């Protein structure tokens, strides 16, 4: 079985995000990049299938700038076999443009299963995996927290309002991973050393995203206010919630 995991780099979630002086982009100068956290669950799911069956091949597929290479190597260090970077001049911010590049590559290089994170924690649309599935005419399931894959179909569970639903889907399909699917492994030292020699093919793509729009800092909250200390302050808090905030 051939599994393709779509992954991308995102700024570390600890990062303070600054807006570029022109107000139309994020200042990426000092950002430290990590594998998108949700993509790590997708990589781990693929590697667990590989652990269980030697014949499983895991390929990482990224749309991004050339600088994405170091983040892709981290994914290879976790245990993926090879990677392809669909290299664009600048990281894309629109999901449909990204999905079209991924789908085009997948049409030419078929896979049995495509895994991805449910959303990038940068632009947060949560749209690319579903778009790829649709563009390929494949089945798909988003935000899955449980996955069992057999030769011809997969069974997944996904969180829905008020519960979980189980979905059965035929292969090939596109499944996006939510937190809770598994616990991603850390790369071993051997994995990190080995990753440097694993094949990473670069395919040049000309795609560009349109303008994001105008960026601004979210409105600041008024400075916090401490009502008091300990249980004795609870009565005053209750009064404020009822009489000042009027939320209870």
């Amino acid at each position, binding site marked *: 079985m051939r599994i393709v995991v779509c992954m991308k780099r995102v700024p570390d*979630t600890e990062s*303070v*995000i600054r807006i570029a002086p022109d107000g139309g982009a*994020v200042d990426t100068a000092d950002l430290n990049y990590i594998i998108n956290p949700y993509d790590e669950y997708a990589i781990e799911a693929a590697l667990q299938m590989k652990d269980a069956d030697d014949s499983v091949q895991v390929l990482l597929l990224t749309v991004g700038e050339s600088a994405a290479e170091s983040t892709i190597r981290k994914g290879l260090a976790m245990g993926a076999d090879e990677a392809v970077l669909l290299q664009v001049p600048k990281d894309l911010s*629109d*999901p*449909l443009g990204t999905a079209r590049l991924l789908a085009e590559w997948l049409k030419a290089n078929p896979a049995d299963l495509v895994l991805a994170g*449910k959303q990038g*924690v940068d632009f*947060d*649309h*949560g*749209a690319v*995996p*579903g778009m*790829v*599935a*649709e*563009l390929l005419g*494949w*089945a*798909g*399931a*988003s935000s899955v927290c449980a996955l069992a894959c057999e030769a011809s179909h997969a069974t997944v569970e*996904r*969180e*829905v*309002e*008020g*519960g*979980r*639903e*189980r*979905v*059965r889907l035929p292969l090939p399909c596109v499944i996006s991973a*939510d*937190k*809770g699917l598994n616990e991603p492994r850390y790369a071993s030292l051997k994995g990190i050393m080995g990753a440097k020699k694993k094949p990473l093919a670069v395919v040049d793509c000309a795609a560009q995203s349109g303008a*994001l*729009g*105008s*960026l601004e800092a*979210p409105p600041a909250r008024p*400075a916090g206010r*401490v*009502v*008091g*200390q*300990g*249980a004795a*302050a*609870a*009565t005053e*808090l*209750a*009064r404020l*919630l009822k009489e000042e*905030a009027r*939320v*209870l």
Partner: protein
Amino acid sequence: MTILCIVDVAEGRERPASRELLGAARQLKGALGCQVLALVPASGDFAHLGAWGADAVHTLPALDGAFSSDASAAVLAQAVETLGGDLVLFSAGARARELAPRLAARLGRPLLGECTQLDATSGLVATRPIFAGKVLVKAPVALPAILTLRPKLFPALEDGFAVASQSLALSQGEMKAVVTELLAAAGGKLDLSEADIIVSGGRGVGGPEGFAPLESLATQLGAAVGASRAAVDAGWRPHSQQVGQTGKVVNPTLYIACGISGAIQHLAGMKNSRYIVAINKDPEAPIFKVADYGIVGDLFEVVPALAAALA
């Protein structure tokens, strides 16, 4: 020009978030000079959606029965072509995550996910948080487009009259992915995204049993229980309750943070709550910087005292 609101149906009724879609569409109606249609992916009488802002209601009996994301998206695409729908609105939730991307790809339209504000004073501009709310983008929307709107941010107002509800005769084709089972009863525990009040616990709660006073306060207030990443990663609470950058982004009226220090990733998920209460032993905890009302103290003393004071 038409705004098409895709209604989310649970147990034969529209979810509250779908009424918010109609409210949002109604606010745009004058500026964009358009009609507002409600599209219900099920059979039934939804004429009452007129009162919430729909000029007409269309139902899709073809989508009764087991849900299939691929087959449903194909039917919705036909419906958009039949009814028009320069702007298609979904409420951001489990169904929209399956359907909106597919519909956008199928129709070749841009998708803007999780919008928090819409403005039509000069062209349509959608506000979206990116980087989990650390930055806001005001994006001009080139129509036709598909948007998903975050629940609890747009006003639902019942001040109109019932309208005609008619069913669209479209048929569903092959189903690939099919929902075979619902594992926990829908309409059971209150979902975080729909809750007006959230009582949330973090590392300071100390363990799974430490959530008992929070659960009790939540029950008393009709609130949902949330958790920080620390509490979820420790296995004390399920991931479905995690608030923050790798959990849910919530906008309740009242967010009560108990034993949560307020890491940047957590703040990203809850700082747009209308009121924030923080209860924490550490007076230096960053959560106090964003809390409208803070109490420095032991949550195991303060939470029961608050429950008693509110009883």
